[in-house]
């Protein structure tokens, strides 16, 4: 087992609700998340909309200030970094955003977009044009695209440009925040393969955030499942799909549509009723208990901790405690 590149410990992020002066309450977007991402691996982070996946990703990159918790990157505590040290950290860790239509400045040419990180970090490049062209080739574009504007590109091409921009600094770690969910299905696969290819070539470490289970399965070595700001299960990808333990994970997996109707009928379907509760006022005890078919009295009062139940398989559920 290789060592951890990123370790997140008890990470919390509460957003205030209400006015500037009087806070009516807090949205507990991320509420005590602990996990690690190992060097060279892809950790998938899945969960439904609003469960805090993206917030977690942004917290790790210090795009948001955590309410509590620690972020260890490459053996260094980066939680409190500021100024120069933060800049240095961000050179090694970066993000690819979900929507390539708004993540590229419409007033900049591709050349300027990709050169931007290099300029910000004042890295000396002998021949900027050659540097950018090389990066463009790496992401499957070419030099004819160099001086065009983002609106001249398709969604997939734009995402390639965004990836090239993050690659320009040769980071060790990238947060991929639903990088394919805004794209056509046919283009999704290309982008995923590109990301895998880049990972192999440069030994990148990914945190892959998505709500698409198929995509996460394809990309990840390990998968973390989030529900309402908390991790409910963390396991190697294969293990998670073959042997899901947490009732929420089971429900999530059974919601994947099966193309064959015969198989679909044969498949055990676990239905979850109700809506996800509000993160302002999360349920007591296990957060999943109001919707869980196996909920007991204990689940209503005590919160289960994330526990290792199999090899490398963690679950936060009283069923396995």
């Amino acid at each position, binding site marked *: 087992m290789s060592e951890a590149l990123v370790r997140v410990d008890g990470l919390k992020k509460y957003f205030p609700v209400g006015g500037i002066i009087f806070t009516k309450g807090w949205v507990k977007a991320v509420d005590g998340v602990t996990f690690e991402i190992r060097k060279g691996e892809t950790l998938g982070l899945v969960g439904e909309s609003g469960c805090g996946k993206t917030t977690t990703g942004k917290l790790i990159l210090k795009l948001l200030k955590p309410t509590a918790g620690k972020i260890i990157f490459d053996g260094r505590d980066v939680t409190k970094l500021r100024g120069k040290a933060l800049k240095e950290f961000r050179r090694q860790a970066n993000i690819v955003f979900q929507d390539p239509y708004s*993540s590229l400045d419409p007033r900049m040419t591709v050349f300027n977009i990709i050169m*931007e990180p290099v300029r910000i970090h004042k890295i000396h490049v002998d021949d900027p044009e050659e540097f950018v062209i090389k990066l463009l080739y790496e992401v499957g574009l070419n030099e004819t695209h160099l001086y065009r504007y983002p609106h001249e590109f398709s969604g997939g091409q734009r995402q390639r440009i965004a990836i090239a921009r993050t690659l320009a600094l040769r980071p060790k770690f990238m947060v991929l925040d639903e990088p394919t969910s805004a794209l056509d299905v046919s283009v999704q696969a290309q982008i995923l393969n590109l990301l895998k290819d880049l990972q192999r070539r440069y030994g990148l470490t990914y945190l892959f955030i998505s709500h698409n289970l198929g995509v996460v399965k394809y990309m990840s070595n390990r998968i973390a499942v989030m529900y309402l700001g908390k991790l409910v299960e963390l396991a190697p990808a294969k293990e998670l799909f073959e042997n899901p333990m947490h009732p929420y994970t089971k429900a999530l997996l059974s919601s994947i549509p099966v193309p064959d109707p015969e198989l679909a009928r044969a498949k055990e379907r676990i239905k979850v009723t109700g809506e996800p509760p509000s993160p302002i006022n999360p349920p007591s005890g296990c957060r999943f208990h109001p919707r869980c078919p196996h909920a007991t009295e204990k689940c209503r009062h005590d919160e289960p901790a994330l526990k290792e139940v199999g090899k490398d398989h963690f679950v936060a559920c009283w069923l396995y405690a």
Partner: protein
Amino acid sequence: MAEEVYEKKILDRFSDALIAFLVKIITLFRKDWYRRNRSRVEEWKLMLYALNRSPIGIAGLVLGMSFIIVGIIGPIIAPHSYDFSFIMATGQYKKYFLAPPGTGGALLGTDDLGRDLLSQMLYGARISLVVTALVLPVGIIIGIMLGLIAGYYGGIIDEFIMRVTDMFLAFPGLILALALSAALTDRMALAIANNPYLTGLVSFIFAVKPNDALNMAQTLSIVVALWIVWWPGYARLTRGLTLQAKNNVYVEAARALSMSSVGIMTKHILPNILGSLLVLMTMDVGSVILVEAGLSFLFGAQMKIPDWGAIVQHGSQYLVNGAWWLVMIPGLAILVSVLGWNLFGDALRDILDPRTRRSIEFKVKKVKKTSEEAGEVSK
């Protein structure tokens, strides 16, 4: 299908030539420029094509440009100096006292002192132009800076800047300007009189005689007053646009790269909101002309300079004598200049707004298609 080529009108060819000329000039200084900015040049061309299809915009541009051109060359081409008097020169008091337009030598007539109205108008255009050129940039820069800071940082900084802006907006601008210019004029006149360089500069930019530089103090104090009342509008608009622009993911992407706040404001936010600001700037050229004319109308009696507003004020005393031209002609000049810039601003908004812009571009393309169809039919 053949490559889509826009059907070009005569104006389009002219604008193409204009851009080609511009590109040539830039290429003189930066060899690589065109290769790197081909997309941008195409964009410019499209914008001009869109403008060419808006007759109102063209009319506005022509009127606005003629205001600038007259303002620059007016004093040079003026047949007489602004204080030249036909009465003094010829001694023909009867002929040149309030002479109607067309009277021997005075194309637009004369006033009660026998001064040539045409020459006064041409010198007045310079004053209007210089005032606009002095007021707008300062107001715009202060307003944009404060608006960017307020919008970008938000919170208490935003509250503070915007409340101050509200204070200035709540004050009637014209009255504030009146009070300020009344208070400033004397000091300004003293400063101009005591400093020979300042005297020279003032008389040069306003194209007045050095003796009259002192009298420009009134105009200059109007300029200062307008600086103070002009920025809040820009601060407001910029703040609103900044709030909108900073929610774009590319701003967050730049933050993820550790770009400084100033960098984000100047490199990402400002270029993206400049289009909307440009529309306001264009329309404001007209507003400044109007407000300045209004203020100089109010100060008119004390002003010894050929400002359009002052000419109207001076001439209005002789309306009862039937001297309509002393009011109508400067009034018309003000109207046309203001209207021109407003029309141009309106057209500019249509061109820069992506929604209306696409429809204009579509129109451009459609013309091509129908003409192609027509060609096929005729074959």
